């Protein structure tokens, strides 16, 4: 398949939707066909796929401080009011 840099750019704009399976079948097929003949685009897609995987596995390195007695009491009181409201 001949390499067309303009087609690579068109594909480039759609890659997140492609990876998120949010493209119509025809568009997916067009990208699949392009990728089958364009190793640089394949390499780029794989690096983007890995990026998405890393973001999905990301967890913040900080945790909130333990809940103070007052903050916990305020939340519990609000929850109990919610339960009382549902019972009436």
């Amino acid at each position, binding site marked *: 398949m001949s*390499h067309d840099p303009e087609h690579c*750019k068109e594909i*480039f*704009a759609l*890659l*997140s*939707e492609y990876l*998120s399976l*949010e493209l119509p079948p025809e568009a997916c097929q067009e990208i699949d066909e392009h990728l089958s003949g364009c190793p*640089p685009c394949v*390499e*780029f897609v*794989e*690096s*983007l796929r*890995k*990026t*998405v*995987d*890393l*973001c*999905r*596995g*990301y*967890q*913040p*390195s*900080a*945790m*909130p*401080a*333990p*809940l103070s007695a007052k*903050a*916990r009491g*305020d*939340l*519990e009181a*609000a*929850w109990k*009011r*919610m*339960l009382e*409201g*549902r019972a009436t």
Partner: protein
Amino acid sequence: MSAVVTWCGSPESAALESGQSRPVEKHQEKELAIALRNGEPGAFDRFVDHFRSKVFGYSWLMCGQREDAEDVAQEALLKAFENFDQLQDPEHVRSWIFRIAKNACLMKRRKSVFAPERELSLEEFLPASESAGGIRRLEIADWSHLPDGRLLNLELRQELQEAIAGLPELYRAVLLLRDVEDLSTEETAQILDVSTDVVKTRLHRARLAIRRKLDTYLRGAQAVRP
């Protein structure tokens, strides 16, 4: 900012060390919301532990300050309990809580400490390439041996965190909700009051920005490898 680069271990290990209950998976949130609404024993503590951590993580990266993030988490949970009857479908408790959290973040009315607000263009993320012998090669790192997120080394985790923190706010919010919190395009659009097309556009550019930042890091790391 020191809070961004302070590594405290995984949330799971921190939760276990502090005596908190086991982490709640996304598919268990609906049951948890129903248990909370029914006043079942243990539901309150599990709900608070789970969503307080989640909202804190989002708010910390959106507000940039630990104290703001803790305030937002507390305010979001209080509002959630006060308005729990407005949660029409417990299946969507996560997106409902994050909508409250997003509004609580906005109430802080602080400019982001991470990155100045600007639009990201698609063109700036097109990778450079070189041709040799009629074969085009991209000038990018070798990503093939990167482990998955949970096995990343500390340095790469920090690089990822700084890359997320460095995104302009509009893009950071979309990436956190779509990829980190695993919300749908539609849910993210509702939370942020934008169209689904806007979510898709911003998500793509956010991912490309993260990819480029990590690529730069990997190329540097691979260049010094013996």
